[in-house]
């Protein structure tokens, strides 16, 4: 109980990942959907750092860095697309994107 092992971190990462998945499934607003995606990426980062620490290997931390870089670029492109969509249709709900007619 008092000794924190790798499994503690993996379980915590699972819980956070589940929260993020719930968010992805029940959110309708696209901005809120992006927030849930950030939670998913962060929970994976925790488990990468934990595995890197408990196996004495730095590869996990490297992967966490690249995940952070990918998350940053995803936010930049995604927000640009969202702003364009909001200018055009005046809302950012998922329902308005159910058809692919421009």
């Amino acid at each position: 109980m008092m000794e924190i092992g790798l499994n503690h971190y993996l379980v915590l990462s699972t819980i956070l990942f589940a929260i993020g998945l719930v968010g992805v499934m029940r959110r309708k607003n696209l901005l809120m959907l992006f927030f849930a995606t950030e939670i998913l990426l962060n929970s994976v980062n925790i488990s990468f750092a934990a595995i890197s620490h408990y196996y004495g290997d730095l590869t996990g931390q490297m992967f966490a860095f690249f995940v952070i870089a990918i998350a940053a670029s995803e936010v930049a492109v995604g927000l640009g697309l969202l702003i364009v969509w909001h200018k055009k249709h005046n809302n950012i709900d998922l329902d308005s994107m159910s058809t692919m007619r421009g």
Partner: protein
Amino acid sequence: MFEAVAFYLFAFLTISMFYVAVTTSQALYALSSLAAGMIFISAFFFILGADFLGAVQIVVYSGAVMALYAFGMMFFDTTRDVKEKQGNKAIILGLSVISALLIVVIVAAPIVGSNIEALYPVTEGAGNTQEVGMILFTKYLVPFEVAAVMLLVAMIAGIVLAGKKMDLSLTLMNEQEILRMREEDKNKKVLS
């Protein structure tokens, strides 16, 4: 002892913050609780000895990403409540918990089964930042450069997508020019 107390405290804080971020109907609450959760997550990195990763987490996530979201929210109508999907909540919750457990089992099974050895073991007598530098600029140099190019592409894409008509400044134009511009916009919308 100290590690256990810190772990449980920050685990509780992170989970509750992210729960608020997922369930609240106010966009501003979601944004601020998400930023708080990001900062609490960096505490895990500091506990695990990944100091540089923790610093990067604070700078990139709660600095850059949250600022970007805050700017993005100025474009949207954030005062009204966020609508939710109407579905069976029990099914959604069960599905997500099961899928997350499955992912952990799939990933953990080979690790538990075999003894893995460190590919790039931790160097003795070097700080975390120094080790990260040594690994990142030797073994991971090509992915590092590719990530730099990807960030550049994302930056240009963001500018091109969001920056339309940002060369015009409403404060520098006089009234007639603004009115004429609005008329042209109306005509364009009617035509399209």
